């Protein structure tokens, strides 16, 4: 057997260093990360990377910071299994491997100049935070911005400081809800769809960006269509099992589409007839 090193391999890793971590909830942890060679990740909002721990494995994780910050990027990781649990034990200065960014994110060129209705369920706030912070960095380039956020319980709320800040801003409209309140909770109670009828939008110039657990999509889409938002302007990000990120291993397929390359962000027009999507 002969062996050669492949420079351009799609599986080659870039080294990256953890600059800062923060526990967001019991299960979710925040990481600020920089590439070791000092280069910029150059991602689009909504794209993901493969995070690699040698000897353990890889996981697809959304980049959750704005591309306008070039010297580092953020991840928000929920501990569920092999890779993610081990990631939670890492601290400042530790090294990880990454590949990517991968896939198609939110089409910023197309949505620039329009109004935005951003709808996040639970961990869906992670990919959307990259869009939201990008929009806030370039606030003048967008029209009205609405952010709706929902999660199961108040103590599961991610990025609560930032959500608090957003709720204070006068240049955007923010609302949130929880499925189950606790005694301190004074806000809305109910599923996220209950917030949609109340937002005041001009449907034809509004793009909706929706990320959340799979069960959320059908209901949210129904409400958005009721509002009159065109199908092409409803943007959804999908999560699937992934191994390669290169459109080869087949794990992420939704019928003829590859979530890792053609997505993870799709517009509703693209996938409305794909029964494997919902």
């Amino acid at each position, binding site marked *: 057997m002969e062996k050669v090193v492949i420079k351009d391999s799609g*599986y080659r*890793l870039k080294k990256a260093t953890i600059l800062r971590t923060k526990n967001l909830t019991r299960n979710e942890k925040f990481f600020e990360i920089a590439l070791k060679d000092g280069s910029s990740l150059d991602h689009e909002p909504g794209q993901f990377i493969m995070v690699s721990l040698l000897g353990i494995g890889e996981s697809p994780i959304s980049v959750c910071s704005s591309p306008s910050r070039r010297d580092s990027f953020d991840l928000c990781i929920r501990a569920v299994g092999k890779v993610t649990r081990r990631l939670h034990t890492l601290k400042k200065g530790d090294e990880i491997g990454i590949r990517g960014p991968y896939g198609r994110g939110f089409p910023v060129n197309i949505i620039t100049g329009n109004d935005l209705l951003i709808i996040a369920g639970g961990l869906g706030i992670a990919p959307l935070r990259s869009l939201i912070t990008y929009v806030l960095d370039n606030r003048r380039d967008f029209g009205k911005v609405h952010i709706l956020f929902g999660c199961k319980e108040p103590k599961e709320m991610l990025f609560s400081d930032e959500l608090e800040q957003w709720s204070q801003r006068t240049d955007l409209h923010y609302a949130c809800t929880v499925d189950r309140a606790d005694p301190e909770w004074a806000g809305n109670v109910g599923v996220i769809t209950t917030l949609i009828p109340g937002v005041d939008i001009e449907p034809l110039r509004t793009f909706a960006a929706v990320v959340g657990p799979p069960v959320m999509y059908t209901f949210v889409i129904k409400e958005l269509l009721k509002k009159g938002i065109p199908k092409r302007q409803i943007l959804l990000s999908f999560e699937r*099992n992934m191994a390669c990120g*290169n459109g080869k*291993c*087949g794990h992420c397929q939704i019928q003829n589409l590859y979530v890792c390359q053609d997505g993870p962000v799709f517009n509703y027009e693209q996938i409305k007839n794909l029964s494997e999507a919902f």
Partner: protein
Amino acid sequence: MEDTQYVVLKKDRFEEFIAALSSMQKLVAPVAKGFGAYAFEEVTSADPIALNYIPTILPLKKYFMPQRETLLEFTLDRRSHAEAVVEYEPLTIFGAHTCDLAGIQCLNMVFSERPKDYNYLLRKGTITLIGLECNDYCDEYASCHLVHASFPSGGYDLLFTDLGDYFMVHINTVSGDRIVRTAGLCEGAGSAHMNELRSLRDRKRTVFRNEVPIKTKLIPELFDAVFGARVWDNLNERCLACGNCTNVCPTCYCFNIKDELDLTLARGIRYRVWDSCQLEPFARVAGGINFRKERSARQRHRYYRKFRYPVDRFARFFCTGCGRCTRACMADISLKETLSELIKESEERVWKKWL
């Protein structure tokens, strides 16, 4: 049709030719495994080669994308380091049927598509492919004519056609030419030889007919109409989700990626292994949601990945008609039958619309 691209190898020189091939580099060819089964294995002489064989248990993909293949090598000590590698072994494959050549053509398209897969492409560059034309059907499971794989259409360095007491050899590439010259056992093909080749092909055209009652070009349309067919529910009852049909398929290339440490726990590799859309964990994500929980959905996905999705992406079918999936299925799920049932059900639907 007088052509320098054709030479003749007399059968009494076949043994010498194989010996010459095997002296150049590792040679593999179909050999009998008993119980009517065959496999590609290393040979050093013509003796064990089965010239009259039905498709092997595993197709040629096992040489192009091995069952288990290293992607990265790494060390975990303080200065941890990872390097992307490809491992390969220069190889000549003798005796590939036209369906298996078609299978490699499919894989070539997949792994050349951006982002390119250099593990596959680099290894492919070290493999010499010698085809062997089928003069007749292998058995009743084959459906190669339906997908245009019953006649040779490239994808080889040399192609052998059995014409009685000699092989007609088509030289398709420079490296094929080099082999013929190095062996020095072939002679020029005359017009009598060319006539015999032509009449074999004419005879084949009367033997090979679409094995399923549909015009090939209408298959994509058929699949556009049957996503919700009852046929899939029937497969749900029968399929055992064993993954045999995909592991033996020449155009199934799905894989998983895993890490493994050696016994020192300080060094390791990241490797890929064949995976299958038929298996329970394939589309399952954290939290336990399985996006193809039903075996019917998995079977449907398999058929669409043969007959519909690649038509958009690569403008060809990803079934080569080799019949392996049918032979390997202990639940007797037959590709030809499934297609026929889909045709029947779609006709019913058309009628219902009119009534």
